[in-house]
């Protein structure tokens, strides 16, 4: 069965985007930052992707990142150490042993972090893009539409080439599926062609990117997808 690709941004959910007690920090006349969630199992390469995306896009766009660590501030600390963004552009949310709750069932702490970043950046021209990295969870963990405008689901070839076949909401509904660590495929005996076939069967025409984030320019398919989403987001907002 082929699913129609989703409309770019079916819901704007401006209510959730409304900060408590203050006007949203909008950039260039009414355009709030695009919010992109990165979900997927622990260790698949979400933080590596966020870091690489920041490096690839930070000259073109004004960026910020929210991390959702499960029980430490490792991801935020990693991004700070790697200096991919200035510290005031990185916020860490604590998730109380339930990373999927913080991105789906009760998004309040994440929305608060997003708004704090927007307000902090308001005086310097605002933000174009906010990346929200989930704490890493199972294959059913997806982001609420009240929190993000689009989501990327990151899996890796080393966790088993049957994952796309297993499906689940992350695999089937994410706006972009990333199959990372293709460099490891020969070492773990993963069949990339089969993964691509299974992913297409699950996702229809929704895009899939095979990446090796650690390689030079490895993030470029995801960076290109993000640029296209940002362009569509700006057009849609202007049209409103």
């Amino acid at each position, binding site marked *: 069965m082929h699913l129609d690709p989703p409309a770019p941004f079916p819901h704007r959910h401006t*209510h*959730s985007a409304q*900060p*408590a*007690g*203050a006007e949203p920090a909008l950039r260039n006349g009414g355009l709030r930052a695009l919010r992109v969630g990165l979900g997927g199992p622990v260790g698949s390469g979400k933080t590596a992707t966020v870091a690489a995306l920041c490096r690839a896009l930070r000259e073109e766009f004004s960026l910020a990142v929210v991390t959702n660590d*499960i*029980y*430490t*501030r490792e991801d935020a600390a990693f991004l700070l150490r790697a200096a991919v963004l200035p510290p005031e552009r990185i916020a860490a*949310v*604590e*998730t*109380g*042993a*339930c990373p999927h*709750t*913080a991105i789906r*069932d*009760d*998004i*309040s*702490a994440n*929305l*608060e972090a997003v708004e704090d970043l927007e307000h902090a950046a308001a005086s310097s021209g605002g933000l174009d893009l906010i990346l929200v990295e989930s704490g890493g969870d199972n294959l059913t963990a997806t982001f609420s539409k009240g929190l993000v405008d689009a989501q990327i689901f990151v899996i890796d070839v080393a966790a088993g080439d049957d994952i796309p076949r297993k499906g689940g909401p992350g695999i089937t509904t994410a706006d972009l599926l990333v199959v990372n660590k293709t460099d490891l495929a020969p070492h773990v005996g993963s069949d990339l062609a089969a993964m691509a076939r299974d992913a297409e069967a699950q996702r229809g025409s929704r895009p899939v990117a095979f990446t090796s984030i650690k390689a030079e320019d490895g993030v470029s398919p995801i960076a290109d997808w993000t640029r296209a989403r940002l362009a569509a987001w700006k057009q849609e907002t202007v049209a409103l």
Partner: protein
Amino acid sequence: MTTAALLVLADGRFPAGTHAHSGGAEAAVRAGRIVDSATLADFCRGRLHTSGLVASGLAAAAAGGHNPRDLDEAADARTPSPALRRTSRKLGRQLMRAGRAVWPSAALDDLAQACPGGAHEPVVLGLLALSAGLSPLDAAHAAAYESVSVPTTAAVRLLGLDPFEASAVLARLAPSINKIAEGGTQAARSGIDALPAAAAPLLEITAEDHATWPVRLFAS
């Protein structure tokens, strides 16, 4: 008519950020003070009769129409630990966000404008109860119940406690929860200065310590 609204407000799934907090249970588990359902019950009883009672009084007063800004100061005065103040304001801000979407009101908007960083959680809870058409006693019940439901949920996750036993702990506390809610409501009738100020020094101290842990499951 309004009983159902109270169920919505007091539901642990109400999306106001409490799921990431343990109400001091994580520190108590680490210290070996909560190890099973019996010690969880002891912990909850202590919390209910101290911070639970204070929260009940504040929530009842807010639901009864007392000035929320004055109540916010009263909450500060009853919360010596800076870490607990931060937590209470953070949760208040998150409850405000959910509350304005669920039961919008001008009173909530006003308090949100006045305290953009968040008012104390029990004050927001009381004002939200008012917006939902609930009584001061309802608000006090919600505050008293939350004072024990938050650590209980956290203890289940932290200790792998039998969830049936954990719910039984809450059920056995129900009569005490009622009494605390009634006490808080009663006090609120006599004005802000008469609100309970029961202190829990150990909760205050362990909250300060917990806030410095580099590795923890819960935000508080």
